């Protein structure tokens, strides 16, 4: 393992609480401090973890994202006192906080504004389009009338007017992670159902194809490692590395990623873009985040490529990491150990009576493990979007079919009854 303790004389601040990242930091033996929500204070104290409590929720409720640049002054002062030289965001809504701190540390206000490109889907799309990536037609909407107009124009262009099945469009919140705030609009009726407080938001034409995400570790503007994750059933299951058909297009995907890096002028860290690849191999950009991906993708990478992506995230975020360190760290992208998949389980009942793990699943050649126990809290909380999964089933096999097939088959299985 890299041993850089001696030559690093500043601390890295992890913005957000995540045990795998804390563990990675600890294993890298880099000096660090955690900036997390106050309710983790007790845990941090118990284990003597360097911790600064920061009430992110308070700022989220009272200030806009753009205000974070000014609001992080207090935190910056504390971190400066702590001898922090770098801030790394771990979650979607700590991206601007880390950027605000880094902007002050490096006395470069642009760093903060740059981070907002990842946090505002309108800005993001514009920048991608200007950088030459293929994106859908998009507009920003202030109200339902804007949505209606966009929906009509898209259908007008597709000559679908008056037809039974209209061309769908997508409505997305500017600044939410994953699928929260995402609505598919297939009729005018769907528009009426949008809630007023959902605005403003982004409107976008529908794109077709296989959806993949990339986990790109970048250092000094260069791709150090590119993982491609195939979404098997959107929102439920994913596999990495992807099926051979997609793997064949790695070069092309790499090209799209590099264009994205150039377009966004990204130098260091981790990005998590999503693309559609259609039947002809055309790649369209969906969106990009500058944080650790959800859906246990890092676990899949760890399983198949045998390196710790949480460590990789930290190493790539730090400009002072050397070329040699990185060269030793990452394996060859072609040398994956089989395929790994994860299936997220969401209860479809209001009250959980029992857990139902089918024997065929546990005996499936691709089955690796699952994380489910009958919960103490039997009532399932209501959430927007998919919410947090109640469990994950992991698969692993040399042959992608033994992973892909159960990921598809069990997506609509009721594990909780």
């Amino acid at each position, binding site marked *: 393992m890299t041993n850089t303790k001696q030559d690093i004389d500043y601390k890295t601040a992890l913005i957000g609480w995540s*045990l*795998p990242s*804390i*563990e990675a930091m*600890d294993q890298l033996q880099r000096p660090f401090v955690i900036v997390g929500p106050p309710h983790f204070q007790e*845990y941090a104290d*118990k*284990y003597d*973890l360097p911790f600064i409590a920061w009430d992110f929720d308070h700022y989220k409720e009272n200030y806009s994202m753009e205000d974070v640049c000014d609001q992080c002054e207090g935190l910056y002062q504390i971190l400066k006192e702590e001898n922090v030289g770098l801030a790394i965001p771990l979650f979607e809504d700590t991206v601007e906080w880390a950027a605000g701190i880094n902007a002050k540390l490096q006395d470069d206000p642009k760093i903060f504004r740059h981070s907002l490109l990842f946090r505002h889907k309108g800005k993001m799309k514009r920048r991608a389009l200007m950088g030459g990536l293929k994106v859908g037609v998009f507009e920003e909407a202030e109200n339902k009338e804007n949505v209606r107009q966009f929906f009509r124009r898209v259908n007008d262009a597709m000559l679908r007017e008056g037809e039974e099945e209209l061309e769908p469009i997508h409505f997305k919140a500017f600044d939410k992670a994953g699928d929260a705030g995402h609505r598919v609009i297939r009729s005018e009726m769907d528009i009426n159902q949008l809630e007023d407080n959902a605005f403003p938001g982004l409107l976008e034409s529908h794109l077709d194809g296989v959806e993949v995400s990339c986990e790109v570790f970048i250092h000094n503007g260069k791709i150090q490692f590119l993982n491609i994750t195939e979404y098997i059933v959107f929102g439920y299951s994913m596999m990495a590395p992807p099926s051979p058909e997609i793997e064949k297009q790695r070069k092309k995907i790499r090209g799209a990623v590099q264009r994205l890096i150039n377009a966004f002028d990204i130098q260091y860290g981790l990005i998590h873009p999503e693309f559609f690849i259609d039947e002809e191999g055309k790649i369209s950009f969906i969106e990009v985040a500058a944080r650790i991906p959800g859906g246990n993708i890092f676990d899949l990478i760890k399983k198949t490529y045998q390196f710790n992506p949480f460590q990789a995230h930290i190493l790539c975020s730090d400009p002072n990491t050397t070329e040699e360190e990185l060269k030793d760290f990452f394996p060859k992208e072609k040398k994956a150990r*089989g395929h790994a998949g994860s299936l997220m389980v969401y209860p479809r009942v209001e009250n959980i009576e*029992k*857990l139902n793990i089918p024997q065929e699943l546990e005996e499936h*050649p*691709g*089955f*690796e*493990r*699952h*994380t489910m*126990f*009958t*919960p*103490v809290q039997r009532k399932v909380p209501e959430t927007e979007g998919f919410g947090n999964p109640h469990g994950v089933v992991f698969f*692993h*096999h*040399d042959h992608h079919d*033994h992973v892909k097939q159960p990921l598809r088959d069990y997506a609509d299985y009721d594990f909780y009854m």
Partner: protein
Amino acid sequence: MNTGGEDATLQEAFETLNQAAPYAKDMYQNHFFQVAKKLAESREGIQKLYDYAPQFHEAGVFEGGPWEDPSKLQPALVNGSLRVDGLESIVALLSELRMIALAKEKHTHPEVSARDAKKYLNEVMANNLDFIFPEESGEEAEQQQQGKETERAQRLFSLMVDELSLQSISSTLIDEIKRLMVQRPIMTERIRLMIRKAEQLLHEDVEEKDRQEIERFHQAISTVTARSKEHDHVSGYRKQLQDLDKNERSEEAAAFGESMRETGLVSPYHVALVRFLNRNGEIKTLQKALGLSNKGYSNLEEHFETVQELIKVAIHLPTRQSLYGLARMLERGVLSQPPVLPGLRRLIELDIKQDVRKTLMEATSSEQEGLTANDVLTAGVISVLGQPLGIGQGLNPTCQSARALSLWAIHDPGYLLELIPRAARDGDIDMTFEGAPIHSENLPGGLAPELHKELDPVSLVLVPHLDRIYADMVRRVQFRGDDPHKWVNPAFYGDWIAKGFSKVFQHNTQNVVDYRGFVRLFYATHHREYNEGHELIYPNPVGICVTTVYGNFLGFHAITIQRIAYDPDDTYRVYFYNPNNDSSQNWGQGIEPSVRGHGEKEGESSLPFHEFVSRLYAFHYNPYEQGDAFAVEDEKVEEIERLARESWGQKFQWV
């Protein structure tokens, strides 16, 4: 991909957890528990887990959870934890494996010696005989639902028995039976179940002394005499009774009477005998069958007509335990109190509400036995009047109501006999609180909206009403500046409760204030040497802090001081009634309430005065019977304060 089999999977899951930093254990525990769950599906799998048990603690299997510190674990909670469908039962299983490793000295812990662990496990085994000796059959639906957890627990106990051997629990089991028996609870189901389980030990290699004890218990609930042994069914014995001569019947009566007196348990054959003697008016033989003293006999003689009526109505096979209650009632001379006879007679023909009727029949398994709800209720009242300290709260959080029933059964049976028909016939009882009438029928909830039905008939009828009224009284005064019990207790229990009230906790803050003053006041009002010789006349409902065997705070509990007196060895003791019917728990620091051997009457437990005070947190007192608080020696007060501070006191702020 499942490669390498379960050994490799276990090792990998364990090593990953083992190597994680303490703060990171949380991320790897789930997977280890999953692997453990899978392995626990077989006896061999549990054995494999046990091989790792000495390292569980080090590896962080319990890190951050309630099982982390083995010295804080409660044998009484194991059964419940093992039955949970979910993570808890797996962690509980691993925790027991660690405890076995501690007992076998394969693992050490600074606070739990091998002896401690053995003691803990013996108690666990004695509490979980169902798992050690699985019932052959059971409710099918229940089995299906609980199947996996129950079977897993049975496999765990199979390992435990193999490691620790059954003999080690035979004496524990016998002690446990005796300990419960000597408290003479009205509800004897648990004791009977344990005896039936102990009978299975007769096939094992147990000591002769234990074998004899088990046989004695077995006989007490079945065939006490040689003649009864000849019959598989009570009806055969009943027929034979006619053919016996007076002397032979007298021998039978003496044997059954003695067994009942010794054990507090009633055999079904005993019922046949007593009903026979009753029919024939053989009063002298009946005295023997009831094991009555001369005092009891004179009561029997005086009220023979009523007693004959009561036996006819109330003493049947399902209600046979009331025979012991009847004997005790005669010894107590309760029938001589004017309201009692008419009160009992009223019950026989009482028009009982349909829902109450249903509850009584179902809860006592009296359906299809040719009994009426009136029979069951009358039998229940006989038990309560005969064994006021045998009333238990069952599995309900209703110690307040149980205390009330017990107090009235002793000091005001007439009042109790008024309340019962009100509840059973009218579905309502009423009390007055600070001038305002409170009717139970108008009240919601209470502490126990869903009453667990394993209760005596009187509790079944009255507790739902009493509980609601008590809760309502508390509600009415909850925002006053002091503890609600100060006003509620005298109003609820009756004017026997003294109006003075003292508590160690500051109301609202729960801080301990002026502890020494509290201790001195208790001495000055309750200890004969400091309170100018006043005797405790009526029971005093007090609050105690129950502590674990390690002295840790477990919770608040309501008990009643029955009397305070010197025991045969000249130790000044507090004798109290604990409505949980399991009074001899170990409270740590060497404080173990005893239930026999120190002058206790049936159903009482006792502690030396100062030990009792160290667990006390609230009591009532009569301000007009207060002696010199300053006379209490400083050393005594300091010693009690030390005991309190080092046990339950650790949980609270002392100011």
